[in-house]
C-alpha cells in the first residue's frame, strides 16, 4: 500500500492498520524520516513531486520489495507540501514472519525511494532557500541491492 499526502500520518495507527487482525506476523519494521534542522539553518522544507509518476514509482518499488522478500504487508506514506523541522516526511512499514526480511525490505524501500521516487526537497532558512542536493551515497546504496542475492 502506498500513499502520497499533504497531511501528517499517525505512526501508531498506520502500524496498527498494517497488522490488523493478523497473528502470522512476527516482525514489523517501521522507518520514519523527518525534517532535520541543522543548527538553526532550516526553518521550513517544501516537498515537490511529480503527481502520477510518484505513485507509479512507489508502487513499483513496493512490488520489487515483495518480490525479493516474503513480506506479509507493507506501507509507504510520503508527504508533500510545506513542512517544519521535526515534522514527519516519510513512513515505511514492513511486516514479515522473521526480522531479517522486515529489516532488509524496509532498508531497500528507503534506498530505492531515495533514488527513484520523484520528490524534490527545498529548504528555507535565515540564509535563504535552496534545493537539496542528491547524495552520491544514496545512489550507491540503491545500486548495492543489485549486487546482492535475491530473497533468502
Amino acid at each position: 500500500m502506498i500513499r502520497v499526502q499533504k497531511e501528517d500520518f499517525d505512526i501508531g495507527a498506520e502500524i496498527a492498520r498494517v497488522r490488523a487482525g493478523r497473528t502470522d506476523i512476527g516482525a514489523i519494521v517501521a522507518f520514519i524520516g523527518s525534517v532535520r534542522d541543522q543548527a538553526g539553518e532550516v526553518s521550513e522544507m517544501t516537498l515537490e513531486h511529480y503527481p502520477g509518476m510518484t505513485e507509479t514509482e512507489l508502487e513499483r518499488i513496493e512490488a520489487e520489495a515483495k518480490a525479493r522478500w516474503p513480506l506479509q504487508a507493507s506501507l509507504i506514506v510520503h508527504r508533500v507540501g510545506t513542512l517544519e523541522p521535526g515534522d514527519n516526511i516519510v513512513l515505511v512499514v514492513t511486516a514479515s514472519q522473521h526480522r531479517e526480511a522486515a529489516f532488509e525490505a524496509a532498508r531497500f524501500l528507503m534506498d530505492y525511494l531515495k533514488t527513484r521516487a520523484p520528490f524534490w526537497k527545498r529548504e528555507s532558512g535565515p540564509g535563504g532557500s535552496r534545493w537539496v542536493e542528491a547524495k552520491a551515497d544514496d545512489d550507491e546504496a540503491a545500486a548495492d541491492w543489485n549486487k546482492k542475492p535475491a530473497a533468502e
Partner: protein
Amino acid sequence: MRLLYFAWVKEKAGIAAEEIEPPAHVGTVGDLIAWLKTRGPEFENAFARSEVIRAAIDKSHVRHDAKIAGAREIAFFPPVTGG
C-alpha cells in the same frame, strides 16, 4: 507532446509545462535536451549541466539515449531527493 519541468529545472526554465512539436531530427531524449537549449537563455541555463538532468517518458525513468517517438509526456528534473 507534453513537456513537464520540476524543481530547479522548472525554476530555471521559468515554465512548469508546455506542449511542443520538436523537429524531425530530434530522435532521443538527449536530442530533445540539445534542441530545448537552443530555445533561449532560460533553457540554456536550465539544461547547462545536462548530464545531471533526469528524464521520464510517460512517467517512467529513461536514459538520455531513449527514443522519444510515441511519447505523450516527457518530464525533466534534477536527481530526486525524497525520503
